[in-house]
């Protein structure tokens, strides 16, 4: 389908990109385009101008430090999958990117685009929320950081203001044994579309108790939802903790009002949350007990 007439510009730096976004308030940011081009084709959204950041090398770096991995927003899924830094320090990022769509989409689609689109079926919003990631937002007043929870505010909505760019994502490197899990209910069983996803993260502290517990459900609420009662129940338990049903039962599922659509009814989505939450916790706990991730 022919797109509506649109203006295009390819800035040479992130500063120039921000300046362009501030000069053209109707402009949108184009990176991999694997969601945006379809949105434009189907007239779901419209921009008068596209600012193409996909060629900016400064937004495509994966950097390692003692405390964090930093991933540029325009880094493709395929680059995350093949990053030695990711594989050594936080392999769940590569494992999750590997689930997305197909080779063609993974070669173009970016982690920043996945976050900024923030479709409830997107892979990275719940994962980054569970990992305690920090979103680096760049605007005309410089770099600002916010937590993933602050960033993902609602269906297709982020805290990104007009004239701002998501420049990168900082992911902590836990200093103690930890577990990460990403458990989707995939329509068709092939990760094409995740109707509901639960992600989990746990760490084991020196005395052998569970800490930094985060359990996040998506597809059932406007934003990735922290299941705080489950987290509180697990926090402080020993590493041998196994009462998954008890932990998950603390969460009031009737408070969820997930949408119904062609892929799954709201009732089905709600009923799958405890199932997926138990699986995600189990997986994360198995990793933490081994003391390393396989």
């Amino acid at each position, binding site marked *: *389908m*022919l*797109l*509506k*007439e*649109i*203006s*295009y*510009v*390819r*800035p*040479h730096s992130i500063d*120039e990109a921000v*300046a*362009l976004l501030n*000069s*053209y308030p109707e*402009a949108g940011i*184009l990176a991999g*385009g*694997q969601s945006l*081009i*379809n949105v434009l*084709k*189907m007239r779901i959204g419209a921009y008068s*101008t*596209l*600012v*193409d950041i*996909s060629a900016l090398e400064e937004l495509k770096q994966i950097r390692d430090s003692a405390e964090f991995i930093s991933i540029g927003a325009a880094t493709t899924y*395929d680059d995350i999958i093949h990053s030695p830094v990711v594989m050594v320090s936080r392999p769940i990022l590569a494992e999750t990117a590997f689930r997305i*769509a*197909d*080779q*063609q*989409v993974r*070669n*173009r689609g970016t982690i920043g685009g996945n976050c900024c689109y923030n479709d409830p079926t997107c892979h990275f919003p719940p994962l980054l929320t569970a990992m305690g990631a920090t979103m680096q937002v760049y605007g005309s007043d410089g770099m600002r950081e916010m937590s993933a929870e602050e960033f993902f505010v609602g269906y297709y909505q982020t805290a990104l203001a007009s004239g701002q760019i998501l420049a990168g994502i900082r992911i902590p490197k836990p200093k103690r044994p930890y577990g990460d899990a990403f458990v989707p209910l995939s329509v068709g069983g*092939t990760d094409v579309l995740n109707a509901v996803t639960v992600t989990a993260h746990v760490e084991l502290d020196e005395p052998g108790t569970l800490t930094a517990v985060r359990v996040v459900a998506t597809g059932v609420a406007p934003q990735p939802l922290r299941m705080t009662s489950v987290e509180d129940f697990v926090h402080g338990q020993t590493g041998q903790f196994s009462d998954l049903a008890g932990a998950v039962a603390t969460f009031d599922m009737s408070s969820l009002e997930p949408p119904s659509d062609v892929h799954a009814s709201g009732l089905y989505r709600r009923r799958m949350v405890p199932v997926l939450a138990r699986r995600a916790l189990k997986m994360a706990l198995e990793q933490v007990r081994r003391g390393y991730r396989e």
Partner: protein
Amino acid sequence: MSNTPSVSRSVAVTVNGTTYQRDVAARTLLVHFLRENLNLTGTHFGCDTGHCGSCTVIANGKLIKSCMMLAVQADGAQIETVEGLAEPDGSLSPLQQAFSDAHALQCGFCTPGLMLASKYLLEHNPNPTEEEIRRGIKGNLCRCTGYVNIVRAIQNIAADSAEKGDLVK
């Protein structure tokens, strides 16, 4: 600002080794640019939603769907399409021959995209398992063959290349 948005741009795109300089509207998809501006109609236009993979090409060494990329984004890029697969004398490349031998096509609409996906797969994984082949061509839909003969063609060319020790073209 030196760089201002415009509704059309002059682009230089190298396709199968030939560089084309063209003025193109910013809203033009790469697949339409290839087919209508360059008359390279081997790249097919199927679903228009990024699902079918018929428009698959290789851009700067990466397998992509050309209906999910703007032509202006390909400025300066090296593109490989199905027209670039055959040998210089016009004879079929080993990959094309393998598709023909295994009867890996019926109507042929998906074949250009599937051959580029196969080429990319074998360049990155010269000896794939059946599961890896099926995963590698997941982005390309075929409504005729049921994929069995396509998988067989890829297995045959992988086995041949392993025997001869040469790279798949």
